[in-house]
């Protein structure tokens, strides 16, 4: 960090950008985070992004904000955490205040609904490609594949909270290598 001040500005506007084009929050902003933070700037690796999501998912607070705060802290300490979080909430503040003040029936405009339908299709595509990319990076063996599949089925179809899934997978990450060594 040669000039932390510029860096804080950059963090703020980066998250401002992400907040203003992310619909849904949480996991839907992952493709944007991946592109901006890992691919373009190399501030965090893809694996680190997943770590922050795991922690953000399992601790109090909204996951989108938790993850933004974590990335901000990683890149520029406490000021970075604050800059990233402020950036993330600024677009919401501006857009919602404008709508609440002038356009309360915004969501009932047919053209808006059609645009949103399109947006959600794009979000689905981006997320599918993210899953593919992250699976290639993180699923390295059969136990890893089973953990990934079980997490998907348990949370997606079993109605199980992600928190025990995250905790159990971390435990398995510790235990499986030990068992493997014992076998040898």
């Amino acid at each position, binding site marked *: 960090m040669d000039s932390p001040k510029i860096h804080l500005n950059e963090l703020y506007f980066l998250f401002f950008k992400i*907040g*203003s084009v992310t*619909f*849904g929050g*949480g*996991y*839907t902003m*992952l*493709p944007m985070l991946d592109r901006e933070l890992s691919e373009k700037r190399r501030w965090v690796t893809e694996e680190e992004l*997943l*770590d922050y*999501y795991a922690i953000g*998912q*399992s601790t*109090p*607070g*909204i996951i*989108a*904000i*938790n993850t933004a*705060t974590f990335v901000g802290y990683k890149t520029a300490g*406490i000021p970075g*955490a604050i800059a990233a979080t402020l950036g*993330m*909430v600024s677009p*919401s503040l501006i857009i*919602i*205040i404008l709508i609440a003040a002038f356009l309360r029936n915004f*969501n009932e405009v047919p053209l*808006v*609904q*059609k*645009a949103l*339908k*399109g*947006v*959600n*299709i*794009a*979000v*689905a595509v*981006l*997320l*599918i*490609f993210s*899953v593919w990319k992250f*699976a290639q990076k*993180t*699923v390295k063996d059969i136990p*890893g594949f089973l*953990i*990934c599949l079980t*997490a998907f089925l348990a949370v*997606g179809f079993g109605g199980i909270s*992600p*928190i025990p*899934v995250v905790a159990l*997978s*971390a*435990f398995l990450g510790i235990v499986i290598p030990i068992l493997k060594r014992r076998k040898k």
Partner: protein
Amino acid sequence: MSFLTLYLIFFKIGLFTIGGGLAALPLLQNEAMKRQWFSQAEFFHMVAVSESTPGPIGVNMATYIGWDYAGIAGSLVATFGLVSPSLIIIILIARYFFHFNEKPLVQSALSGLRPAVTGLIATAAFNVLTVAVFPIQTFRENGLWGELFDPATLILFVLIVAAYVKWKAHPVFYVAAAAAAGMIFL
């Protein structure tokens, strides 16, 4: 009710929400009904607006409710209340995390955790897919195959997939193009 009370209410909601903004909705509804801020119908309208605008749903809701309560100042107070617990808790956790994350034991734990988070992203992808592209819920209600496999939606979906494979451009590009295409064709 003072600004401090508003701040504390949203601080509490932020503290007790774990996961996505949708998890905050029951808490928000509870607080709102208890204090008679607005009717059930108004609440659902706020949720609809928060879902159809950019930004995390929870933050959008806090801003909206804060606005109705006390204008711009109310929006700011409610939103900062909501994100304060995140800031405090994540900063505390991050400090420890970067202390210990190089340790072999933590690295092993993370090696198990990452495939699981990939599974969670797959769940999110599946959920968006079954709302936006193949609306299973609507199909269950009305049984119309034409709605489950809507030609215009499917064509747009295939086009975005092809465009992504070909160009790997910035995600923003696909979101913007799909919004424009949705206005014209859907």
